């Protein structure tokens, strides 16, 4: 095991229980994450990117079940290796890991704060849950944190209620709460999707600064390839519950191998060639639903290189192109 390993996910399988039958949502997902690394999980709605992150913190909704696999968390403090999958989702250990080791930020900051307590109260609560400090000390830490995330006049802001904050400020406050215990992993689930482009830029810059300052690892979940290119080191492309390509951010954007990745990158508008006024190259077909019966590679109905009796039968094996660029596609076998 490499020394700087933080998280290792092995063959994770998660199913959704619909009226007494199971539908696989996450299928054989494996990846790892080192200390201080920023990875992005990219995919469209229903591809399972959010579910994966929820599984890491064991915050899965009740109808989702982890069938098999391991989520190994290498604790930085006592050098333990914990399999998060085996933990009691309501037990002590997972509570310790959540918040203390894993911080989370979500798309909609309003719903993750309680409207009846002040922002300061809610940050203090997290601090005092995980650290033995006095109320006054916790309050001071909260003010410092609010200052760190760039909230103007943090001394006043600590006593304000969430509704008094704007969307961007709430997102900052949520980041403050997530990093309050100096976690080694920050899970950011579409943190900028609901924000305007100028605010999004501010949040991205803030996250990059914090990442450099505290050296934490970030799992960034998004569908926005622009954001991915700007913030991440490594990228995982997911399609219908499976990882189809992983690689460094340069590999993915400059040398994409999987047809889906390649199509995605060509489907988004770029500003560099406005004069040419080229058409976008769309991906044909529709985003499948989890109820569609798809065998083999789930992308095959939309793929230009679809090979009958191959792509629609078995899911391809992993092909390592370089040490950290892998693709799951028959084109490379």
């Amino acid at each position: 095991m490499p020394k700087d390993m933080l998280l290792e996910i092995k063959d994770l399988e998660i199913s959704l229980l619909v009226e007494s039958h199971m539908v696989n949502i996450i299928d054989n997902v494996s990846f790892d994450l080192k200390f201080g690394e920023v990875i992005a999980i990219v995919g469209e709605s229903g591809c399972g990117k959010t579910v994966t992150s929820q599984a890491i913190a064991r915050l899965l909704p009740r109808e989702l079940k982890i069938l098999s696999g391991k989520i190994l968390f290498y604790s930085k403090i006592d050098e333990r290796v914990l399999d998060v999958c085996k933990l009691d989702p309501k037990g002590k250990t997972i509570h310790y890991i959540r918040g203390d080791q894993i911080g989370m930020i979500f798309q909609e900051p309003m719903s993750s704060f309680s409207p009846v307590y002040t922002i300061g109260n809610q940050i203090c609560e997290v601090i005092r849950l995980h650290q033995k400090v006095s109320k006054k000390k916790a309050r001071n830490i909260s003010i410092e944190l609010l200052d760190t995330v760039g909230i103007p006049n943090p001394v006043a802001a600590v006593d304000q209620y969430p509704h008094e904050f704007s969307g961007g400020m709430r997102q900052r406050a949520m980041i403050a709460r997530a990093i309050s215990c100096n976690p080694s992993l920050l899970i950011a689930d579409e943190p900028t999707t609901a924000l305007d482009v100028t605010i999004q830029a501010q949040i991205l810059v803030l996250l990059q600064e914090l990442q450099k300052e505290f050296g934490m690892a970030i799992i960034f979940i998004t569908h926005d390839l622009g954001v991915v290119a700007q913030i991440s080191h490594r990228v995982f492309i997911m399609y219908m519950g499976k990882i189809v390509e992983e690689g460094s951010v340069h590999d993915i954007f400059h040398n994409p191998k999987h047809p889906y990745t390649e199509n995605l990158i060509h489907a988004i508008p770029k500003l560099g060639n406005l004069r040419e006024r080229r058409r976008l190259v769309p991906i044909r077909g529709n985003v499948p639903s989890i109820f569609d019966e798809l065998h083999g590679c789930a992308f095959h109905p939309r793929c230009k290189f679809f090979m009958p009796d191959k792509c629609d039968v078995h899911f391809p094996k992993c092909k390592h192109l370089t040490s950290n660029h892998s693709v799951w596609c028959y084109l490379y076998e």
Partner: protein
Amino acid sequence: MAPLLEIKDLKLYYPVGRSGLLGKPITTVKAVDGVSFTIIRGESMGLVGESGSGKTSLGRAILRVVEPTSGKVLLHLGKKIIDITSINHDNLRRMWKHMQMIFQDPYSSLNPRMTVRDIIAEPMVANHIAKGSDLKDRVVDMARRCGLDVEQLSRYPHAFSGGQRQRIGIARALVLHPDFLVCDEPISSLDVSIQAQIMNLLKDLQQQLNLTYLFIAHNLSVVAYACDRVAVMYLGQLVEVAPTEILYYKPKHPYTESLMSAIPAPDPDNVMEPILISGERPNPANPPSGCRFHTRCQYVDTKCETQVPELIEYDSDHFIACHYAEELQLKGALEQPAAVKKEHT
């Protein structure tokens, strides 16, 4: 270049709060506050701005789906010029044959209790334009043009994915062959791989049916791709209107500059250096004096706090509302063709 629509000093104020038992509104939110611009026949005009800048309200006020407080919207139909804001309701209903809209949310914009065929047919039925087999043929024709599976027309909207629903919405809007279409965030709720499909569909239909678009969106790259000209809106007013390339590569308004610098380029080699505009967006019920952007502008001067800048045509077809438009040297979007980049340095 014949104009299709002239918007003159359009205002839309919403009352907020009430005082007393049967009281009068306490304040008004100036969602659209004196907007003037022209849309040329056959072009795509983009409209961008932050959420709450009033771009959706502007789109709806132009169609008079919401009643504007004051101002004029002149629709040029051949040699006739019709003032949309002053005609009576029956005539307005007739005018809507020429002006249609597609919505952001493909879920709430289709009546869940009607089949797709009925939804697309409704404008023709309501206007008594077609009946019987003629009606059916027209529905099928438009559905096919919009890339819908004709066999599935008797299904209900809930059976369709977001992208297909958006196609249904487009088919309904276009079935009367309008001249003008307001596209209010038509792709922002769709998946990335579907967005390009809808964008291309809109482009194809524009050519086939000779349409004019007002394209409202907050995703700046999408607008850049879709539009010939773009207008930037801030707190209910236009701050800059220019041809797309000029606006993106050589903006002249500080607000546009900050917007452009914040677009994350889908290229890891193009590292973002956003100009972070300070402070919060002011309350639209109580906008700042002078230039509305002065509270967050990095080039602010005393003049900006007191004097309201007018939207003036500085260059041909480049309108800017800034006192220092000529002096300021501003940066454009992160991704630029090498040639343009060189000119700058």
